[in-house]
């Protein structure tokens, strides 16, 4: 073997070790996934964990972000709200993740808030919620009330001529806040007190006979009546079944639901429900190639022909792509840099438009109204002409009317009171104060 060859070998070995070294310097980007994989919420949240893993896999196949691979760090907070805070701390302190995607219920988000603010983490929250919050460290990719509830009521009023309203919900914070907002909104539009009926039922309620009969009675007063339903979880199944049995068709008294999606319909015989409505920002049936690609990938990933996609999954799709774009834009995964870079980032959604991150950390979304079909899917019957920007602070609640959120310099505040000109406590401090 000649010396020349030796040198060559040595050089290539050197080059190899250098390139290894370079690789080692480029640690993978760690993505924390904080969704319950056991307990009551596992039904809904497991699909979101799988969605994130699929998105990360796809991104890695595309070469990661600027050459850096992504790595999922999955923890299980087990539908236990205080455990969410502990797991978030574990993700940020021990695993040192760059970003967290997670939570479903509002109460779990409130539990995590102080932790992500204290440790300066990033959290993408994908579910529709009651609003009244904006944290520097949280990005809300689900709908605020003005992106779901208010447009749905507008649709019922303008398109279907509804004048009498039943607000039916499960007894907890999201339905109560949403119904409070809707009640004020309806009264502002001149709807009389007597034309609004409000009803709350416990989780898992199964005996709907007298409530449905009441709704029927309420609807025979001569004005077009509709039910706005914030009924959550599996209580919907006996509710719709009772509607069908008592012969309430969608053309008589339509029900528009905010928590019934493809996943929930999968467990019901939808025959008697055809024509009842739901308001979301995404439906699996949206006729769009990006959507079909997403569904096909999802079906393949799950290995189940019947796997369905839903609104919070689209929210994660948008949130994940926004994060990718923001990291590219900032050129780093440094939390503060990403936080600044992500405002204004626009990525395609699955309904044929774009979602933009607003300064209040909410995103723009189209609002779709879908009618239930006999195959368990929704057909879109109405949508807003343009996207709607999420409003962190509702205009229809007395305390929040004057508040705005803007995380750009120089304001950098999640609850700035425009009248008093002051900035209140942060969302995390607020959550801690409420918990005490």
């Amino acid at each position, binding site marked *: 073997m000649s010396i020349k060859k030796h040198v060559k070998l040595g050089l290539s070995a050197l080059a190899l070790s250098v390139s290894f070294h370079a690789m080692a310097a480029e640690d993978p980007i760690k993505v924390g996934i904080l969704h319950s994989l056991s307990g009551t919420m*596992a*039904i809904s949240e497991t699909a979101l964990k799988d969605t994130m893993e699929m998105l990360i896999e796809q991104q890695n196949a595309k070469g990661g972000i600027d050459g850096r691979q992504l790595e999922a760090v999955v923890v299980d907070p087990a539908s236990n709200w205080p455990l969410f805070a502990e797991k978030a701390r574990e993700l940020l302190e021990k695993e040192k993740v760059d970003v967290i995607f997670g939570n479903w219920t509002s109460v779990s988000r409130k539990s995590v808030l102080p932790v992500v603010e204290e440790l300066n983490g990033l959290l993408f929250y994908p579910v529709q919620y009651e609003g009244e919050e904006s944290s520097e460290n949280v990005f809300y990719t689900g709908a605020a009330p003005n992106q779901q509830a208010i447009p749905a009521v507008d649709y019922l009023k303008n*398109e*279907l001529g509804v004048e009498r309203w039943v607000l039916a919900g499960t*007894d907890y914070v999201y339905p109560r806040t949403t119904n409070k907002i809707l009640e004020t909104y309806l009264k502002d539009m001149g709807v009389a007190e007597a034309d609004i009926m409000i*009803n*709350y*039922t*416990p989780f*898992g*309620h*199964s*005996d709907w*006979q*007298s*409530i449905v*009969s*009441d709704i*029927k009675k309420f*609807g*025979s*007063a*001569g*004005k077009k009546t509709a039910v706005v339903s914030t009924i959550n979880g*599996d209580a919907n*199944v*006996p509710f719709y*079944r*009772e509607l*069908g*049995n*008592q*012969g309430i068709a*969608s*053309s008589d008294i*339509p029900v528009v639901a905010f928590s019934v999606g493809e996943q929930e319909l*999968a*467990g*019901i*015989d939808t025959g*008697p429900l*055809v*024509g009842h*409505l739901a308001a979301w920002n995404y439906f699996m049936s949206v*006729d769009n*190639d990006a959507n*079909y690609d997403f569904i*096909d990938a999802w*079906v393949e990933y799950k290995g189940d*022909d019947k796997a369905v996609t839903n609104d919070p999954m689209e929210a994660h799709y948008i949130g994940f792509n926004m994060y990718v774009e923001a990291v590219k834009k900032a050129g780093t995964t440094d939390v503060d840099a990403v936080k600044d870079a992500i405002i204004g980032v626009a990525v395609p959604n699955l309904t044929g438009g774009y979602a933009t991150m607003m300064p209040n950390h909410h995103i723009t979304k189209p609002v779709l109204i879908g*009618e239930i*079909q*006999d*195959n368990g*899917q929704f*057909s*879109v*019957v*109405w949508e807003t002409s343009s996207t709607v920007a999420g409003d962190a602070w509702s205009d229809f609640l007395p305390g929040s009317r004057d508040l705005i959120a803007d995380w750009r310099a120089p304001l950098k505040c999640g609850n700035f009171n425009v009248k008093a000109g002051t900035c209140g406590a942060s969302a995390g401090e607020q959550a801690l104060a409420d918990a005490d």
Partner: protein
Amino acid sequence: MGIFRWLTPHCLNALYLKSLYLKALYLKPLGLALLLVLSLPAHSQAEADSDQGQALLTNLADASPREMDAAIEAIVDSGDPRARSWLDAFGNNRLSRIEDTGQVVVVLRNVGRDWTIADPLTGENLGEISRRELDRVNINNAIRGKLEGVLAMLDLYSDDPEVQENAAEAMMGKVNDSVVNPLTKLLERDLPGPVRNRIEESVAIYQLQQGEPQARLEAIDVLTGSLHSNARAALNNAVAGDDPAVAARAKQALVSIEQKLKMNRAAETLYFGLSLGSVLVLAAIGLAITFGVMGVINMAHGELIMLGAYTTWGMQQLLPGQPGLALILSIPAGFLVAALAGIAIERSVIQHLKGRPLETLLATFGVSLILQQLVRTVISPLNRSVTTPEWMSGSLVINDALSLTLNRMYVIGFALVVFAGLMLIMRKTRLGLEVRAVTQNRAMARSMGIRATRVDILTFGLGSGVAGLAGVALSQITNVGPNLGQNYIIDSFMVVVFGGVGNLWGTLLAGLSLGTINQILEPWAGSVLAKIMVLVLIILFIQKRPKGLFPQKGRAAEG
């Protein structure tokens, strides 16, 4: 402009008849192809018009929501025999367009990635096509409502009285300028009583809204006594209207209707109460045996109910397409599964803890958690959907204001049958006698030659089996999921304690009365508060009478 003005009775009649078999055509394309061939000569014109048919459908597909009326009108106007089937497909969200060619097709199967389509003109099956290639022809509730009116108008000329009756029902509140004349003409014909009444009422509603003052007063006379909600709605509007004479008369009519309604509502509440009560009785009656008679606190009772419900689901999986048969077979199967599970629990856990109620409670609570997790792991954490057979859905219509839901009625009947059966076993059979003997004085019974252990097994199996039966019934009215049992365990104990431990009659009476009280309270207190009030009521009652409604008397009670 209405969509009905072109609807003349004779044309509709002919249209209806001609379209009847074509409607079926899309459901059975192959079987009916022969029929199509046979009828080709009669439809040579339709053949020639096939371009026109496609044009009509394209027109419908292109129409903006505002132009929809006109497009539907054009289709019916054409007198095309296939019009009805097109409109049916449209109403069922089954009309789609192929993106590339613009051809309008009927979707036969809209599940999965590729959808089966058919040609709306010939009914020919065109095979499968990717859903990406299809654009759905949109329909919404407003248009669907109008379409129902059009189809109802067609159906009114049917020869089938049932179809006619449904059509007349659908016309209520949908009468407008364009149909009022054909409808009045129709009244001159010989019509079955209910159909005639309905049409008269719906015309009266129209008159009350639009007619001359005199006609409006007459309309009120027709509507007086009608319990239909649309009639009430129209009268309510008339009361708020500007004509004082009409308003006064309408008010009078409403008062008389309201009186009739009161009776009906009371009957309805009673029915709701009985049905909730029978659910409680079913859930509790098994416990009345195991806890009431044997004195075993079985926290896994709810999970035995759940097993019964899952058996129903499993049966339906085994017999796809026959939910009714599956449900009937589930009754013995559910009993067996739950009874065997109960016996297994008794043998493995409870028999070792005789006379230690606290340990029994904790151990069976553990068993309940194990069973729940087992179902979660083996089957799925998600709820399973159990189909309701045709003969159990819908309701029995007594009158316009009172209809009794069928599934609940079956549950009430089932609960009574189970109760009667159990009563028979306990009173008239040897097993019943032995059970009573063992529970009253175990040692004495054994010395009389009764095999106490065997009796324990059989009794526990019986109580568990009955819980399984409750599960079969509950699968028809609530969610079948791992948590099913938890929702009923507290209620069951409540009923048994309230009724008096060890007394089956007490359980029946307690269940029915608690259900009724709950349903009376619910309308004005709300469901959460009603539940709390019932609980407070029971606590107060137990304070006064610690042994429940029917306390056991005699020496057995002291033992």
